[in-house]
């Protein structure tokens, strides 16, 4: 380095102005400048997020379409994937393990398929939530938008995915003798509550995954444990027959079990209210609101820190 004469910074060659001598903070205050990248208030954040609703929707649809765009069968996989999934679970739990335990085949198959689809909805929302920030650092570092857009958008993508699965589910239900009735209308509030719940969880794990990307490696194990304790392939009631009442109740208020049971109750004729825990709608509502509000606030608290490597 031959540059020895320039050891410091040359000052700005500007004419003296009345602002001379002000500190940066005073200068900023004088001209009404705000701190770049500061976290907005919660209300303002909600407003900004609402302003980005078109982006959130477009982004989720784009992700959904991009998923199968290289496949020859294209968007047909949206329906074929859940169908194959259901077939595999039926093969293992219905035919090999006989997990139906006294349920008739007409009830057990729709029971199983509903369980798999509903749980997959929560499972994949969480998995994509973990990577929502850490897997999209390029986007976070290039453009300005409320970061909650990403986990919300990914949950929305999973909701749309589930709507395709519902087509399969309807066919399976009708095929096994459960015909559309008034109770099918309950599907709408169940899905709405579960979507809120999933989004809340996605927001929570998105913040945790942004700080600790290793969570993406750990999550599948946690989720699988959750799946096997939630009664996806078996009925909690019959499985724990003879055990004390409170164990059954504890397993039944598990949010995943609540949403699965409500969906089964709505869809399947042979699956009556006796299978549901007491106050089931209140529990479903509680989980949805608690997860969503808690997750949203938790995510917002770190808003200005997302994007640091």
């Amino acid at each position: 380095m031959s540059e020895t004469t320039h050891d410091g910074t040359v000052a700005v060659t500007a004419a003296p102005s009345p602002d001379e001598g002000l500190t940066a903070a005073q200068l900023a205050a004088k001209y009404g400048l705000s701190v770049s990248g500061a976290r907005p208030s919660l209300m303002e954040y909600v407003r900004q997020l609402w302003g980005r609703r078109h982006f959130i929707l477009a982004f989720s649809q784009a992700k959904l379409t991009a998923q199968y765009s290289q496949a020859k069968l294209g968007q047909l996989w949206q329906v074929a994937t859940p169908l194959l999934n259901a077939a595999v679970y039926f093969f293992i739990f219905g035919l090999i393990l006989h997990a139906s335990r006294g349920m008739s085949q007409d009830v057990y198959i729709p029971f199983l398929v509903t369980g798999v689809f509903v749980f997959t909805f929560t499972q994949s929302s969480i998995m994509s939530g973990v990577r929502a920030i850490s897997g999209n650092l390029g986007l976070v570092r290039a453009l300005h938008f409320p970061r909650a857009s990403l986990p919300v958008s990914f949950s929305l993508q999973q909701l749309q995915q589930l709507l395709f699965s519902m087509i399969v589910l309807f066919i399976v239900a009708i095929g096994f003798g459960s015909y559309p009735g008034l109770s099918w209308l309950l599907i709408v509030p169940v899905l709405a509550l579960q979507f809120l719940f999933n989004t809340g969880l996605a927001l929570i794990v998105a913040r945790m995954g942004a700080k600790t990307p290793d969570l993406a490696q750990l999550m599948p194990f946690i989720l699988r444990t959750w799946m096997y304790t939630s009664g996806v392939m078996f009925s909690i009631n019959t499985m724990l027959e003879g055990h004390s009442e409170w164990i059954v109740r504890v397993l039944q208020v598990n949010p995943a079990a609540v949403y699965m049971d409500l969906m089964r109750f709505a869809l399947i004729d042979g699956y009556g209210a006796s299978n549901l825990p007491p106050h089931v709608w209140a529990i479903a509502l509680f989980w949805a609101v608690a997860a969503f509000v808690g997750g949203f606030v938790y995510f917002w608290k770190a808003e200005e820190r997302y994007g640091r490597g």
Partner: protein
Amino acid sequence: MAEENIQDRRPTVIADELHIVYRVNGAKTGKGSATAALSRMIKRGEERGVRKVHAVRGVSFVAYRGEAIGLIGSNGSGKSTLLRAIAGLLPAEKGKVYTDGQPSLLGVNAALMNDLTGERNVILGGLAMGMSREQIKERYQDIVDFSGINEKGDFITLPMRTYSSGMAARLRFSIAAAKDHDVLMIDEALATGDRKFQKRSEERIRELRKEAGTVFLVSHNNKSIRDTCNRVLWLERGELRMDGPTDEVLKEYEKFTGK
């Protein structure tokens, strides 16, 4: 120009002793083996297995309305990092950046998806930049025409992965340049496409400059800095080495780089 008065010296961006630190996971020792990772976890340090990269070290400056500021420096000197910090996209380790309105980085690449058609990418990119659906609809044709994608056939309805790298770069620039900005930051965007497109994009940048309050331009091309900027910040190793009128700073910089 009767506007050269105190009214014009309105600051738009103030950087105050700004420090930016990147944290890189699992790069502390360079040993990537599992045992090395385990021993790092067991030896409880302040931050295990995390290596810090101090990219910007205590940079302070005030930018005013109507200025076009060039950022120069060798590769890895912290230019792009500084731009992102000004845009509020990278959190500051220490110090603060104050801005007038929301500065925007001219870059939309990350929001686009190669598996989608050019058409859908125009809409997605516009929405990602915060444009409304109406604004996008209004400018859609301009964006497509400007990119020149459709000059050689109906390419806009094909997935972006089928584009040549030049075509993709042109479409990206066209989408990014479609929005008006208060404080605009351009990161070597001039170097895309063929000569014809470069001329067109330089013209568009001058237009954007007129609409924007302040423009920041990162470039390794001293000529394009000379053509577009009236002030230059020279960064070296994350520190502000020089700050002044374009000619003065570029003269020193050229001496430094031995040209």
